């Protein structure tokens, strides 16, 4: 049993210190994942809180069929979807929109030479499903099987999502680079 699974077992028995240890171990990556989808630090903090409250309440339901980390990311994934649903803002279709990078602040970002800004901006142009898949692949170095576990869909769906997401991401980034060098 890995360290996270051991902690979760203790959490299931009401051990608050184990919950605190699990929080310290996973709080940063889970928060980063949530924030990558909400882009709001306050909302992200609230969702993170809800996620670990859910861990506290549901630890005994963990069946050990996946990694603890994957299970907790799955809770976070669903919490954010619930938040989106309440706002009726989420587009859950899996079609690939034709997107153009027409951000008014693109020139500012390029002038400052901030690669992270470019990547953050272009990630923000992706749909939630696509952004989540890319975030899990590149922030958390998950495999497609693990991402599928988090999002609760078949692995083939994740392959399709990542394939299209990276195309859109690269197109967006190259568009910003092209505009940096005036003809």
């Amino acid at each position, binding site marked *: 049993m890995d360290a996270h699974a051991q902690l979760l077992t203790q959490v299931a028995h009401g051990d608050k210190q184990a919950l605190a240890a699990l929080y310290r171990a996973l709080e940063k990556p889970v928060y980063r994942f949530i924030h990558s989808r909400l882009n709001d630090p306050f909302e992200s903090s609230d969702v993170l809180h809800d996620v670990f409250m859910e861990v*506290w309440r549901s630890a005994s339901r963990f069946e050990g069929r996946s990694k603890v980390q994957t299970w907790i990311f799955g809770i976070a994934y669903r919490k954010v979807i619930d938040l989106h649903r309440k706002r009726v803002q989420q587009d859950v279709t899996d079609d690939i929109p034709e997107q153009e990078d027409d951000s008014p602040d693109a020139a500012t970002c390029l002038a400052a030479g901030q690669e992270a800004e470019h990547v953050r901006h272009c990630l923000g142009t992706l749909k939630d499903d696509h952004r989540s898949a890319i975030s899990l692949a590149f922030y958390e*170095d*998950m495999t497609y099987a693990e991402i599928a576990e988090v999002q609760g869909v078949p692995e083939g769906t994740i392959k399709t999502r990542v394939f299209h997401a990276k195309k859109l991401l690269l197109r967006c980034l190259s568009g910003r680079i092209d505009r940096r060098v005036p003809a």
Partner: protein
Amino acid sequence: MNRQQIETLLPLLANGTLEGAERDEVEAAVAEDADLRAELEALRAIRTTMQSEETYSPGEMGLARLMRDVGEQPASAEPAMKTVIRTRIWQAVAAVLLVMVVGQYAFQMPGDTTEDGYSLASGDEAGRVSIAFVPDATEEQIRSLLLQAGVEIVAGPSAIGFYDLQLLEGVTPEQVYGILDNSEIVDTLNFPED
């Protein structure tokens, strides 16, 4: 492995999780193709940029909040058996409804379908199944219901919260209707009549 399959696996080569024969094959393809090498470099750069970003998480403040709220709630989970029992009852009721609706409803596929199973925008509106969920329904409940019913969302939500559904292969309209119409989290179900 064709080119699209190679391209699909490039992100895993970039994040270091690709292993075994797949890794060997993708690496060999990359070695022979300048475009693949360029894409791999770009993906590695994106990953490095993302991972080097500083994250300002709630940290100890968040932990203090968590410990405060945890103190007010016991660590208890609903027994798994409850879910199982509910599912069995639900399935039984759905089976009864299934018998009742056989012959009453016929399902029309919503327009053309792509290889991925998603309908095209030009689908026949009149033949679409559309659904709205109660406001408190969680994503987990919705996903579970859709999986049980054998349908997938192909569009939505609309401005008033409707999703368009499509049946998965091997599922009959009667089965879908029986399950969806009996669900507590379904607010409105529009099912096409023959």
